């Protein structure tokens, strides 16, 4: 008996995720370079990512608000290690609250020198301003845009 013996296995599973009406409307907006937050008139909250229902007022979101292409970082990190199936490092990730949105939305922050990690992290502190940069030809996916530092 070999107690160190192992059996190798791999999982390959494919999916098709239905987008639904709410995400579908959001994605249509992205094709026109518009970022649309779902709005609840009862609570006044503009949600990004958009929601069908307001989680604060427990009422249906009853409108859409186009948010700004500038915003404020709430939290961020700089990744310098490689993870399987994730982008090659280094890269920066930030939650930013875009102007007129009530909640923060995650995306990559590009165009920043990440060679000195603490120095770069200092530039991504909560309160730092970002701008949205769209692809030339958006496809109606969340990856159609990214953040860059505004200053």
């Amino acid at each position, binding site marked *: 008996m070999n*107690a*160190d013996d192992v059996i190798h*296995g791999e*999982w390959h599973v494919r*999916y098709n*995720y239905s*987008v639904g009406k709410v*995400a579908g409307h959001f994605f249509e907006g992205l094709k026109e370079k518009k970022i649309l937050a779902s709005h609840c008139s009862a609570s006044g*909250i503009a*949600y*990004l*990512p958009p929601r069908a229902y307001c*989680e*604060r007022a427990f009422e249906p979101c009853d409108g859409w608000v186009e948010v700004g292409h500038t915003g*404020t970082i*709430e*939290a*961020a*990190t*700089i*990744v*310098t*290690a490689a*993870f*399987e*199936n*994730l*982008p090659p490092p280094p*890269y920066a*990730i*930030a*939650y930013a*609250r875009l102007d007129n949105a*009530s*909640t*923060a*939305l*995650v*995306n*990559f922050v590009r165009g920043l020198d990440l060679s000195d*990690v*603490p120095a*770069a*992290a200092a530039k*991504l*502190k*909560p*309160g730092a301003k970002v701008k949205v940069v769209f692809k030339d030809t958006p496809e109606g996916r*969340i*990856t159609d845009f990214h953040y860059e530092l505004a200053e």
Partner: protein
Amino acid sequence: MAKNVVALIGAAQTKFKTHYADKTYVELAQEAAKQALDDAGMEPGEIDAVVFSMAPTQFMGVNDCDRWSTAHVFGTGKPYMRIHAGGATGGSALAAGYIHVASGVYRSVLVVGADRVAETPDAQHILNLIWDRFYEHDFALNTVTMTAIAAQRYMARYGTTEEQFAKVVVRGRKNAMGNPYAHLKGDITVDDVMNSPRVAYPYKRFDICPRSSGAAAVVLTNLEVAKQKCARPAFVNGASAITHSVFMGDRMGVFSETEFSDHDGEGIAAYEAYRQAGITDPSSQLQVAELYDPFSTFQYPIIEGLGFCGRGRAAAIDQEGGWDMRGGQVAINPSGGTLCTNPIGVTGLVRVVDAANQIMGKAGANQLPNVHNAVATAAGGSTQFFTVTVLGDDHTPKGIAQ
């Protein structure tokens, strides 16, 4: 709310390490189940129901492995449920077992589970799969990056430094030297942590828990059975859990009702567990805290949330030795905690086992004197699920008999 007294009368954990070459997953779970029953002085026939503690099964690679485990943990012919709340799983499984007994529906319940996080080479690949495909999955979120993001925000709020977080690692590895079950242990320095390779700001490699394999189990029962079986049980006097939205971006900024970087769900859960257990002054009533701290940045906000000090104060108190196992204000993670050992599907349960052992006088070399009350926490999902368990040597603390 009327409820029955719940006593923990048996507790077990295996040694934790990266790989278990000599046992399969179910054999590991069985080892913990058998040891917990032996510790409780019980036969499998005396168990009325089984709660199986298991988080994502993609780490160990057998889908929904609770099915594989039923007979191995002596569940055949009994009510059997699996609990899964990500990293909070072990705390939630304990809460489920607690409710089984507190409700009076079952006398005696086995809560058991196992995990083998390193059966697949990159756990963070799997953890990235917990995010939705529409809005968040594409941005390299995983448990390392999402908690690094929380830590960066905490540092900006309170001025905490990377060196202060490094001290948490040093203290944990040192405490773990007295814990024969711990995965990582040893004398390291703040410089060792600071010089380990950067992973995701502010984390270096030593700021991050290992991927552990192993198992844990507890036996919960009512007061009548406990009196027959156990001279010094650990009574479960408070058990609570709260859940946040999956969207971390809802929980930061001026419109948020909660503060993401404070891990504030743990504070909300603590408030409820303390109410149940009659804890009104945590620092004087609780002697031991076993915190779910897979990253060096978790302890300070959780210590603050549990009411051991004000917000933003925990790091400064740590510098003065306030969270040391011996001589501190409260002994934080005498086991070494999750930073030293993280078998995700049972980590929350291990926290309960370690806290209960301190009350039952079974903590070995790390046993502390005069432990009357202890608290155990767990957290999971997108820092989303939070549990708090309060254990005590007396089942009639102020406030429990309502």
